[in-house]
């Protein structure tokens, strides 16, 4: 909560222009559908607008279509239908303009085992049409703590180092948009922290970042906006804080003076539940509703002589929201 609050303040402090810039769409996806040859429908008429300069986190369970979405925008997978533009350029018709702006770090560690780190990064820069710039690459490798390993063959590096190399390759051509597919899956704490710092630094430089993740705290911590994908559909896209607010439910927990076997019938309208061997009375309510129902509940409890010794409220996390949304989508 504190982190978000601080960031919200930082955002408003940095002023009017940043907000305006943020509203400009850099990637526009309309009616994107992908049906694989085997008949699997990976994406169903997906619409998504990625704003310039934002960090957008795509959350979703395995097989939700996150990677397919990224791979289509990057040119690895051919869409079945739909239109995508990157900074106004159609990804099929004007693929050079579109792809020059994009750096991709795929989920799997695909590296040229026999190549030296520096050669591999230089290759990536050239491949994306940029002239050689060793000073830039030196700084990039230093930022990613790879400079000492620049002459090492990639196969000699640890998994975490290989991932850094993949990031260096993606950033080697100075892209405006960075796609990170599951950047922190199977990554140790130190690298994850470095990765977050790097993502923040990129964002500060104006790079738009789209990342997919399983880690909800990551999305909550990092992202300006969160999109939830399940089963090939985007269930919701909203600003992280707004999403929490809109969908957030609060929970009131009352520690009772005496345990109860079930909630008294007089309190039925609050839909209460008991836990902790009947010591805790739990009331879930909508944080945004006009009346939370808390004061009336407490009044009624006092009327029927039900005492409590402690009271605690908590806000549901993005994880609760996410699980709720996905389950809701499955139930339909």
């Amino acid at each position, binding site marked *: 909560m504190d982190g978000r609050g601080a960031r919200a303040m930082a955002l408003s402090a940095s002023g009017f222009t940043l907000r305006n810039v943020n509203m400009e769409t850099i990637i526009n996806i309309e009616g994107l559908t992908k049906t694989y040859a085997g008949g699997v429908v990976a994406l169903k008429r997906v619409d998504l607008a990625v704003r310039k300069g934002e960090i957008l986190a795509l959350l979703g369970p395995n097989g939700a279509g996150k990677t397919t979405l990224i791979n289509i925008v990057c040119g690895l997978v051919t869409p079945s239908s739909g239109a995508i533009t990157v900074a106004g350029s159609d990804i099929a018709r004007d693929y050079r303009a579109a792809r020059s702006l994009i750096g*991709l770090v795929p989920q799997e560690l695909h590296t040229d085992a026999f190549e030296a780190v520096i050669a591999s990064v230089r290759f990536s820069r050239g*491949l994306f049409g940029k002239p050689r710039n060793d000073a830039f690459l030196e700084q990039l490798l230093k930022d990613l703590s790879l400079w000492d390993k620049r002459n090492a063959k990639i196969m000699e590096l640890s998994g975490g180092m290989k991932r850094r190399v993949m990031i260096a390759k993606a950033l080697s051509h100075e892209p405006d948009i960075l796609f990170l597919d599951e950047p922190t899956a199977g990554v140790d704490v130190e690298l994850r922290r470095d990765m977050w710092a790097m993502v923040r630094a990129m964002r500060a430089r104006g790079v738009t970042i789209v990342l997919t993740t399983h880690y909800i705290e990551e999305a909550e911590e990092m992202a300006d906006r969160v999109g939830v994908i399940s089963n090939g559909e985007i269930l919701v896209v909203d600003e992280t804080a707004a999403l929490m607010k809109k969908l957030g439910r609060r929970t009131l927990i009352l520690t009772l003076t005496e345990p109860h076997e079930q909630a008294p019938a007089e309190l039925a309208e609050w839909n209460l539940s008991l836990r902790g061997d009947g010591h805790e009375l739990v009331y879930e309510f909508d944080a945004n509703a006009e009346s939370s129902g808390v004061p009336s509940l407490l009044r009624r409890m006092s009327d029927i002589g039900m005492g409590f010794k402690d009271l605690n409220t908590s806000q549901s996390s993005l994880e609760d929201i996410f699980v709720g949304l996905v389950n809701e989508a499955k139930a339909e």
Partner: protein
Amino acid sequence: MIKNIHGIAAIYRFEMARFRRTFWTSLIMPVITTSLYFIVFGSAIGSRMTEIGGVPYGAFIVPGLIMLSMLTESISNASFGIYMPKWAGTIYEILSAPISPLETVIAYVGAAATKSVIIGVIILLTANLFVDVTIAHPFLMALFLVTIAVTFCLFGFAIGIWAKSFEQLQAIPMLVVFPLTFLGGAFYALEMLPPFWRSVTLFNPLVYLISGFRWTFFGEGDVSIGVSIGATLLFLTICLTTIFWMFRTGYRLKT
């Protein structure tokens, strides 16, 4: 049409670096093979062979020998070049780059063809140590050498895209091209065959390439030089068309 020069250069350099890592084996292999062929076919057997069309047998096999190595080398180098990224997954970078299919093909096939031409020249120089090689049409010979290297590198590139396993990758050069080259008149003139087999052999496309290449050395071949050039260009066109179809449809490259 060609815009991403840096991209072409990057792939070309990457491929040449791959060749450099195996430089000595790739260099010594053709030298040893050629020497063995000359010792066995040139000296041991060749000394008992009569001249073919006025050309001593040892010299007669030189063009066929160059072809034999170049065709298999071209196919395996070019197919390996594109199959490896597919197999290792690094193809993602090529597919996501602002580089056109044409530029990609120029880079990969250009690098593989460079290596093939180098090998062809090495074999020619090695052969020169054993027999006197005179080249009747040096310019046409060089042109043929390069065209055939490019054609078979294109062929290999298509195989590399098509192949789903290392086994498939090696099957075509070993099971198809090597026998067809051997039976395509690399070591004999077609007129030495009985009429029936001569007719059968004419269905072997490599006959036309080997014959054409030999023509540039000695001024005569099994078939006329025009037919040879036509066949080479036809094969080149087929390979180019196949590859562009593969890229356009994303065949075995994209899902």
